[in-house]
């Protein structure tokens, strides 16, 4: 077992443990903080996979923006829900069964696939994945159109979010 495998196993244990805490924690602020741990684990995995830029974006966008937004939302809507009663639906065992079935199905599907034991090809020297990524994002014969559509989607979503959450005058 190499060092890399050991790091992977540790990270995987952290990710799965904290993800389990995210879906079971009673206090939602704790759930949001456990989500940050999960996202950090995913960033470590991206670093293991030589996707340094994605790892940085994961920390900046997911942890810096999305997780903090969650914590704000939890605090804004806290009064009502504060650890009151069970946090899971009555039929939660049904959800657990569905989740286990989904995992079993995916594992069974993967089991029968022959590319599973593949190991990573060596990166050719001088290959810079960040340069390739940025070229692909702005090159007309690659992904410039989906990239622009994603930007417009983000803008529209944020304008819509401001409109929805805006408190008009005279409205309590």
């Amino acid at each position: 077992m190499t060092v890399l495998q050991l790091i992977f196993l540790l990270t995987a244990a952290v990710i799965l443990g904290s993800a389990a805490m995210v879906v079971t924690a009673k206090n939602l602020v704790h759930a949001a903080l456990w989500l940050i741990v999960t996202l950090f684990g995913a960033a470590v995995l991206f670093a293991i996979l030589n996707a340094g830029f994605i790892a940085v974006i994961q920390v900046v966008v997911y942890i810096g923006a999305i997780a903090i937004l969650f914590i704000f939302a939890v605090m804004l809507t806290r009064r009502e829900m504060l650890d009151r009663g069970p946090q899971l639906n009555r039929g939660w065992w049904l959800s657990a069964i569905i989740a286990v079935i989904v995992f079993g199905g995916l594992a069974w599907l993967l089991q029968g696939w022959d590319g599973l034991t593949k190991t990573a090809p060596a990166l050719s020297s001088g290959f810079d994945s960040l340069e390739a990524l940025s070229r692909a994002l702005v090159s007309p014969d690659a992904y410039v159109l989906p990239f622009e559509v994603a930007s417009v989607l983000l803008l529209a979503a944020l304008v819509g979010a401001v409109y929805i959450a805006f408190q008009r005058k005279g409205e309590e």
Partner: protein
Amino acid sequence: MIPLSWFLFLSAALFSIGLFGVLARKNAIAILLGIELMLNAVNINLVSFWRYNDPSRIDGQVFTVIVFAVAAAEVAVGLALIISVYRHRNTVVADEIDLMKW
């Protein structure tokens, strides 16, 4: 070297945990937390397929970047809706938000 299967099984497990969170939690914000877990599982899958297939084809990372943008949009709109509903009905329990139930 880590075989591809480790990443795939990890992301399958993470996806299932997120699915359980989406289906089982009462609080609407907790449901969104579950969706975030599922999106992260997908991202791990995309990046590991990029790395293990042919790293000079960057498509996997491009998809991941677009998933990031979509996740940010989804969270912004979702949380704005939840806060707006909370202002009007004073609840964030998904079962009690039945305004559109016929």
